[in-house]
């Protein structure tokens, strides 16, 4: 791949150049508001200030892919975000919720993130970026990364059109992964040279640590455990709304069959003797976990969104990973790879029938 090493000023120039040179019509990227970090949609390059101090900030607000989901505009949108967010965008392209040609996906390295509340509260300790050593040190002080990040195997930037990898001494390496990405970098007039950002050994280490962490999470195992897990759910469906890959225009659970009230509920209560209220906790989550079973990128946005603090990472990413494993599918890894439910092999999965 072709790329260039940049210092923080050059990086600022490069991102501004994307707008000024018309490579993209707008950028979705993080910006700082006091100690906090959130996303902005930029048209005017002058609004981009010291991006190097914010694009790696280990704070998770929303999954950026969710912010541009379903946009059907001709303008080209550049998006600077973490690997799980870009992977979600790639799933959305495959799901035809976004046009591949109208987005320039720019992925930054991640080491793990804190919830935005934890990040803002402990900004003095956490700072603008962290590495795995720093994460361990902070963990000792009781400042812990989100569980979804602890079990994430894909923290290094490796997908999208352009990657921004952390380098030594505050420098970064930008490199193009696709023709679109390389063209964008050429338009910026950077002097490009061959770069090797495979980082296989580092990726393996990260994956091994993530797998080890996953093994320590409690397994549900029974209906009783599931019932207890979801007992506090108020079926507000915020987890659905904040999920980047839940995309139906009309959700079943907003329709009369999925959201029974009054007489319909009485009928159900008559059938079963009694039903739980609010209704449909299990049906909603069991259905949703099936719907995102091949596309869940494990970002944990659902858990962050839950007003009842249900640790949804132990449900969505953990269960969907098992489904993804049977199809040997990693969501967002390759935009050309078909979604598992749109493909088949003639001779497969017979051991799953009984």
């Amino acid at each position: 791949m072709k790329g260039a090493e940049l210092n923080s000023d050059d990086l600022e120039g490069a991102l501004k150049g994307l707008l000024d040179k018309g490579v993209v019509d707008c950028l979705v990227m993080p910006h700082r508001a006091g100690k906090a970090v959130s996303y902005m949609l930029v048209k005017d390059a002058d609004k981009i200030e010291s991006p190097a101090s914010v694009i790696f900030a280990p704070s998770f607000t929303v999954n950026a892919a969710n912010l541009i989901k379903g946009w059907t505009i001709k303008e080209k949108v550049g998006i600077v975000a973490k690997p799980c967010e870009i992977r979600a965008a790639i799933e959305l392209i495959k799901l035809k919720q976004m046009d591949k040609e109208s987005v320039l996906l720019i992925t930054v390295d991640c080491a793990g993130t804190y919830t935005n509340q934890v990040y803002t509260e402990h900004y003095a300790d956490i700072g603008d970026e962290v590495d795995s050593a720093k994460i361990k040190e902070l963990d000792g002080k009781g400042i812990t990364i989100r569980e979804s990040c602890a079990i994430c195997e894909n923290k290094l930037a490796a997908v999208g059109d352009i990657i921004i990898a952390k380098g030594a001494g505050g420098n970064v390496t930008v490199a193009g992964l696709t023709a679109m990405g390389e063209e964008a970098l050429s338009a910026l007039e950077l002097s490009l040279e061959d770069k090797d950002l495979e980082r296989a050994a580092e990726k393996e280490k990260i994956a091994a640590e993530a797998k080890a962490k996953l093994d320590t999470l409690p397994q549900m195992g029974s209906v009783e455990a599931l019932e207890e897990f979801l007992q506090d759910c108020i079926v507000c469906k915020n987890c659905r709304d904040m999920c980047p890959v839940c995309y139906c225009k009309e959700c079943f659970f907003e329709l009369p069959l999925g959201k029974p009230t009054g007489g319909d509920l009485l009928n159900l209560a008559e059938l079963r003797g009694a039903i739980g209220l609010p209704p449909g906790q299990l049906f909603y989550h069991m259905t949703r976990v099936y719907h995102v079973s091949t596309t869940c990128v494990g970002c944990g946005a659902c858990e962050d969104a839950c007003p009842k603090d249900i640790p949804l990472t132990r449900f969505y990413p953990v269960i969907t990973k098992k489904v993804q494993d049977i199809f040997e599918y990693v969501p967002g890894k390759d935009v050309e790879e078909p979604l598992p439910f749109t493909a088949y092999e003639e001779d497969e999965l017979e051991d799953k029938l009984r």
Partner: protein
Amino acid sequence: MGEEIKGDFEPKIVGFTCNWCTYAAADLAGTSRKKYPPNSRIIRLMCTARLDPMFVLKALLNGADGVFFSGCHPGECHYIKGNFYGRRRIAALRTILQQFGLDDRFKSYWISASEGEKFANTMKAQSEEIKKLGPTPLRGKIL
């Protein structure tokens, strides 16, 4: 008391079958007077691909002791590849059900229109298996 229930417990099973094969096999089993337990309620679908996993979830969550699906053998789908797609959905659903110990209550078969006897035997074996499992843990629950 649990034992007592298991002894003379008649499971309620919801079945989904493809119109072109297993539904006809059930018919054939009937017309050729093959005996099988009457505890399955069969709902006809037009193809394996019509089996929305939500059908299975809804039946299980509403207290069905078992749910089964049966369609045309792979390669023999009336719509050519419906059961290839459907098989992937079934596999995903089963993987999810496994996490909650519910997969034993979900059966899936391929039974062609000429396999009336296989249909009857499958129904017999299935009924025995679900009986052994006992009533679904979901029935008594306030869900």
